[in-house]
């Protein structure tokens, strides 16, 4: 047997791999013309080029003057205590350190495209979005868009899952950036102060769903609707398209999750060799659709049966925008 050069070995391996991939593709979806792996590698290549170009150009960074202006604007309407912190622990000045991270995630990593961002009205408003992607990068993206792209800048007060408050980092950074523990009382008080509150009514159920159930929203809680009725708050439905594919969840390890007091513990394909790093999201492209503000009237203490159609209307609006997003997109990464 002749000695092969490294290049020859690689070429042979590549050929074998291609054959295997083609066979697999033929088995999985015989009708598709362009094989999935080819599509994905092309998209990833394009995404990598885009990311590299963005990073090199430096245009993704919000200029310092712009950051100053936006934070100054945030400070205006806010009731802050002697130490620049509101009673919920939010300190607008702390956002300054977060801006580069937000810039990077929003503009470089996810290259988020926001549609009809200007539909978010002034004054009190509830942002209601679908939740996905194993880790709440969708919340971060919406928050970043409201802070860095919306005029005037708003801080999205995110309602976070109660369990998360036991994690280090939540006690300081997350609260300083405007998030609050997800309790109806907190939400009511924020809305009465005319704040912009972001709620994911699917909660942990939605974010932790396995890959095969992507873009199928789970049941919505009714709490947000009761609060909207009680405080007379308009609702802006939001659909985030793209986040579903950032981390592939093959299933949840329920026993381990229960041991760690986590709501879920996803198994991802990369976990065997990457460990927790497998939770780093892949550079999918985010498309964020903002719907027309919806106002509802009625008794906040009505029966579930009366509240349910109102919740369904919000869900349907998100579904419509999500379908549009899925139709419009070229791929996962571009």
């Amino acid at each position: 047997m002749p000695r092969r050069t490294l290049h020859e070995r690689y070429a042979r391996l590549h050929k074998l791999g291609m054959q295997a991939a083609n066979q697999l593709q033929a088995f999985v979806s015989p009708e598709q013309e362009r094989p999935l792996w080819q599509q994905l590698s092309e998209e990833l290549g394009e995404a990598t080029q885009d990311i590299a170009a963005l990073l090199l150009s430096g245009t993704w960074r919000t200029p310092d003057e712009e950051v100053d202006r936006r934070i100054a604007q945030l400070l205006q309407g806010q009731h802050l205590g002697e130490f620049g912190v509101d009673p919920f622990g939010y300190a607008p000045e702390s956002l300054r350190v977060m801006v580069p991270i937000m810039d990077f995630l929003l503009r470089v990593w996810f290259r988020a495209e926001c549609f009809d961002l200007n539909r978010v009205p002034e004054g009190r408003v509830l942002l209601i979005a679908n939740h996905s992607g194993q880790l709440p990068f969708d919340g971060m993206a919406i928050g970043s868009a409201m802070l860095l792209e919306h005029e005037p800048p708003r801080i999205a007060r995110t309602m976070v899952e109660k369990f998360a408050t036991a994690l280090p980092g939540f006690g300081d950074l997350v609260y300083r950036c405007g998030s609050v523990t997800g309790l109806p009382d907190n939400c009511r008080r924020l809305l009465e102060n005319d704040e912009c509150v972001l709620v994911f009514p699917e909660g942990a159920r939605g974010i932790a769903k396995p890959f095969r159930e992507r873009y199928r929203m789970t049941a919505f809680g009714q709490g947000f609707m009761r609060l909207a009725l009680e405080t007379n708050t308009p609702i802006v439905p939001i659909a985030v398209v793209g986040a579903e594919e950032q981390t592939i969840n093959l299933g949840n390890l329920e026993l381990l999750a229960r041991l760690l007091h986590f709501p879920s513990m996803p198994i991802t394909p990369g976990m065997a060799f990457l460990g927790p790093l497998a939770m780093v999201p892949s550079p999918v492209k985010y498309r964020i659709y903002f719907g027309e503000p919806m106002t509802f009237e009625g008794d906040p203490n009505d029966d579930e049966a009366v509240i349910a159609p109102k919740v369904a209307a919000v869900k349907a609006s998100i579904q419509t925008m999500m379908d549009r997003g899925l139709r419009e997109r070229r791929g996962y990464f571009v």
Partner: protein
Amino acid sequence: MVRKQSLVVITGVGGRLGQLLARRLHRQEGVQVAGIDRRAFPRKPVDVEHLRIDLRRKGAEELFRTRQVDVIFHLGVMHDPRKDTREHHTWNIRGTQQILEFAHRYNVPKVVILSTGDVYGPAGDNPSFITEDAPLLGAQRFAALRDLIAVDMTAQSWFWKHPEIETVVLRPAHILGATHNAVSNYLRLPRVPVLMGFDPMLQVLHEEDAVAAVLAAATPGVRGVFNIVGPDALPLRKLIEVAGKETLELPHVLLPAVVNRLFQMRFAEFPAAELDYIRYAATMDGSRAREVLRFRHVYGVREAVAAALRRDIFDGSVEGGRKSPRLRTTRF
């Protein structure tokens, strides 16, 4: 028969707040003050009576039998996890029960009980504004708090058992001053331990403001439970910064086990359950006291912290000498 004389009774008068309250009442309101406490009352004003007896013993009743008491200020609630738990428990519960019995038996129209904001307990799922009707979960992880909760509940049961008595329960935020309470001691540490990645919001209250709230609660016609909140809540690390102290960053993962072992061996000053106080927030809504009691705090965070740090020579005045005569009290 001896003519009954009108007076107010302060239990726990030997404590820091008891002393401040006795001085204020004696000075400002010009009423006859009688204190009950086993502890000494150093540099006691001459016309303040001091009964050095245990509230649970018979002697205390004599005071109520012979004199007409107008108000009872029950400050004699002990909170010290280092004390024997049985003594701690009976002292607090039997003592409170006793004082309420006296009020009922000898027609005292008003009882003010100084409970604590700690009855709500720090937890990750607390709302940012805990109202007076929230459940008292303070003992869910910190068993030593269970008798303070029992005291609070006992006092609350008096609202319906004896509606003719105006019972007031006060739940103040963390009181800072020349006292030996957990927060003041914590801030006095040379390096103040904090947990990495946690920075809960805290509410502090100057001891003079706490006393002012107790006095406000004595207003005729007022009854019920009140959260007593001073200046705006601030993050823990900010408070330590105000105190001018360095922080000692500790990981929260293995710490409770280590601390508990050290506490058992009497090396650590506090049990691990107290770590929750520097991990989670328990901030209260003080609007009810502002509306009903018309309670307004006078001292800010900086003054409260200064009061806690200047404990050896405390002359009753805060920096700038606001509104208090120079009365030297002893060190604790």
